[in-house]
């Protein structure tokens, strides 16, 4: 289990190392390194998802480690409360950024091993603090620099900790 302590409350995550072993190991590595401490949810779209783990307040991007293999073909679905890896157009490009689905986003699921169909790798779910996620999804957002859907007031992950 991992807890994200945000300035809106605590989000408790249960990770599925059986279905997404590489993604979970990668995520835990960032948690243990303290990578997520002080990062923000920088992309918040109500009705879709909240995305974070890559930027510090002020939209300063943090360096990451090597990208990982996409495990989206593991059968886990992008449903409300699930956590998945963000990535670029390249299916196997996820590093540190993740997102929490705030709705059932079927179109993000794996459908075929092609650039269009790979989907986004789900690797766990929120088991406590879905109300915190819902609070975050409703914050006021705007554009910052070239980024859209950025919370006007920073939504900060003060620290991320592994709970045994």
């Amino acid at each position, binding site marked *: 289990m991992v807890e994200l302590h945000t300035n809106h409350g605590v989000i408790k995550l249960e990770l599925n190392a059986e279905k997404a072993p590489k993604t979970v190991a990668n995520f835990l590595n960032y948690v243990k390194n303290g990578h997520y401490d002080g990062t923000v949810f920088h*992309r918040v*779209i109500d009705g*879709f*998802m909240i*995305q974070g783990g*890559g930027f510090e307040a002020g939209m300063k*991007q943090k360096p990451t480690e090597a990208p990982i293999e996409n495990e989206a073909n593991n059968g886990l679905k*992008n449903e409300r409360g699930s956590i*998945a890896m*963000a*990535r*670029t*157009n*390249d*299916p*196997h*490009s996820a590093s540190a*950024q993740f*997102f929490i689905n705030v709705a059932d*986003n079927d*179109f*993000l699921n794996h459908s075929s091993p092609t*650039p*269009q169909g790979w989907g*986004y790798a789900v690797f766990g779910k929120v088991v406590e603090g879905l109300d915190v996620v819902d609070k975050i999804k409703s914050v006021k957002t705007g*554009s910052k*620099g*070239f*980024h*859209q859907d950025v919370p006007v007031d920073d939504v900060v992950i003060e620290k991320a900790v592994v709970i045994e």
Partner: protein
Amino acid sequence: MWQEKVLHGLGMAAAGVPGEGKRPHAARPFFFISDLHLSEAIPRTVAAFEHFISVTADQADSVFILGDLFEYWIGDDMLAEPFFARMAALMHTLSERGIALYIMHGNRDFLLGKRFMKATGAIWLPDPIAITAFGTRIALAHGDALCTDDRGYQFFRRFARNRLAQLLFLAWPFRWRRALAERMRRKSEAGRERPALPKYDVTAKGVATLFKRARANAIIHGHTHRPARHQEPGGTRWVLPDWELDHGKPRGGYLRVDAEGFRMLPLD
């Protein structure tokens, strides 16, 4: 508003298209590509383009580039740089070989200007435009204007396509323009990590409007990087693939249109 013109490329004039099929038997195919995002940073993609122009295109009557040939274009003075001069000279060989070249602006290279068209021997195409090829009336577009739900972008697009705004930008010293373009590129790459909402794809409304205004029964566009053949209420919509042979799994390809129909083909 709606733009349309009869095309008189070298190759097309020879084949008698798109003048509603005057000499239909003389018809070599039309090739359509888009979204190559060429720059010196992606040498394998550049090499694939060089092969396409110098070898693959030999069979074609005309080559259509429907936008985003380059990663960005900040004015035709970019032609002074050896890489872009080389690309222009390469494309110019098409007209020397009797193959017409048509270039449409994309959302990244909408500042490709008259000097560039002259240096490449290309004919500039407005976006959108309708052509008649092999008996089919086809609407051509880059595709960004069809993403009508992306209000923020459409607002930027109207500004970026404003001639006065463009002239002011082009009056800047070259290195300022380059610095701004580099900054925008870095920022857009930084912001690219995501799951995307479907709204950033073309919309049913945008597509239906184009079919109707162009009175076309086919649309060819790029931009979304989601190559496909869609059966829409108004006709068939072909989405061209983007090209990327330097990072991740190689992608690319072209659409071939001739008397036998439309075919999406991989790169040689």
